């Protein structure tokens, strides 16, 4: 029921915005009466902070190739070279946006042999004159595992639908000044199939994401996701990460420590099984390379 209400509210929110923008005459009269609105740019540097999505979407006709990498736990000590020896988790993704509002992407993650696809829609944009004080972005994604799992000699995934899980998010963010940005998010994760009787198919998360820019091209980032309900009886922890962003031309290099090994929303929100308390954290990095496919001046 909560899921249905959530879906309905997304659709209604979309349509209400759409109708309000449909009349070109209204739009023109607004432009004549008031000074032109300017949107706040670069609330965050990229579409991801550490693991979490940000309110940002790509620019017009932009293609983003991303490589994300998480090493093993640092608490393995010198024997595991502080996690560098451990099995790593790697995600490659390709993401595209045509109009700086609706973007989509596909990715492949080594953990659980996971393929995913997502849609992200920038519904509201913060303006410099504060007529719109926040940015609001909607996110929906679907995940498919290709893993072969047998439990007691029985194939765990008997139907294709058993392999699927979903995540839906609402993100509200604000750039307070050129240095500080803050975002709140609400997420719902759904697993089509769970393993144990006590496991939950639906889980909910609220989170906070922030960035503090301390130099022209460098920033410190923080993200935290609080699980409203537990997915399983096994001990899990909230995802928390702290990172460093370095911007170098078309590249953004993000280096961080996080207790989440997962790289997809269905994993890091609910399946983080290591804790900061005993240094169950890992080094990770994201590299983003954005290609602009056509001169955007021709579009305007």
């Amino acid at each position, binding site marked *: 029921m909560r*899921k249905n209400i959530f*879906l309905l509210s*997304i*659709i209604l929110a*979309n*349509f209400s*915005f*759409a109708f309000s923008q*449909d009349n070109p005459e209204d739009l023109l009269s607004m432009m004549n009466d008031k000074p032109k609105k300017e949107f706040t740019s670069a609330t965050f540097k990229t579409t991801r902070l550490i693991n979490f999505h940000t309110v940002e979407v790509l620019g017009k006709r932009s293609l983003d190739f991303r490589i994300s990498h998480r090493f093993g736990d640092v608490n393995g000590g010198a024997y595991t070279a502080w996690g560098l020896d451990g099995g790593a988790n790697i995600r490659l993704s390709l993401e595209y946006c045509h*109009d700086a*509002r*609706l973007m989509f992407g596909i990715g492949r993650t080594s953990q659980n042999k996971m393929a995913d696809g997502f*849609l992200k*829609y920038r519904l509201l944009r913060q303006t410099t004159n504060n007529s719109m004080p926040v940015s609001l972005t*909607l996110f*929906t994604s*679907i995940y498919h595992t290709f893993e072969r799992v047998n*439990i*007691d000699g*029985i194939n*765990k995934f*008997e*139907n294709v*639908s*058993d392999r*699927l899980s*979903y995540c*839906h998010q609402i993100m509200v963010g604000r750039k307070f000044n050129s240095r500080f940005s803050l975002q709140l998010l609400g997420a719902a994760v*759904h697993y*089509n*199939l*769970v*393993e*144990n*009787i006590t*496991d939950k*198919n*639906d889980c909910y998360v609220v989170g906070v994401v922030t960035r503090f820019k301390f130099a022209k091209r460098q920033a410190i980032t923080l993200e935290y996701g609080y699980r409203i309900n537990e997915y399983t009886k096994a001990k899990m922890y909230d995802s928390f990460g702290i990172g460093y962003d370095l911007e170098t031309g078309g590249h953004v290099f993000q280096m961080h420590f996080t207790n989440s090994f997962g790289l997809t929303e269905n994993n890091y929100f609910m399946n983080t099984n290591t804790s900061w308390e005993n240094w169950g954290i890992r080094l990770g990095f994201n590299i983003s390379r954005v290609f602009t496919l056509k001169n955007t001046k021709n579009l305007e």
Partner: protein
Amino acid sequence: MVKIITFCSLIILSFSYCTKDNFRERHPIVVSSCDTAGVISYATHIKPVLDNNCTTNCHNGIGSGHSLTAWNAVNADAVAGLLYGSVSWNGTAQQMPQGAANKISDCDITKIKKWAAAGAPNN
């Protein structure tokens, strides 16, 4: 407008394949029950119980008396009632396994009782 309809359609489409299943509801864990019906066999039923509980450290002809490694010795103790008396802790023989907090399983005790009552055959 088109992109909003596309966005909503894809969300609705993704929900259409949404299920809510549980693996253990489909395949509950089956707890193995004790099967003592029919003829109890020395080789199939009794010897594994003795190997697991009696002969590893003690009743192997080296550690202590009453070797339980060969059928003829087991047969003698079983027919005399010593074997069942010791594992069932019924007061007729020294409690075995020696020093254990609990008896061997009721299932295994039932097998020994039934096999001894049948004359402890070498079957």
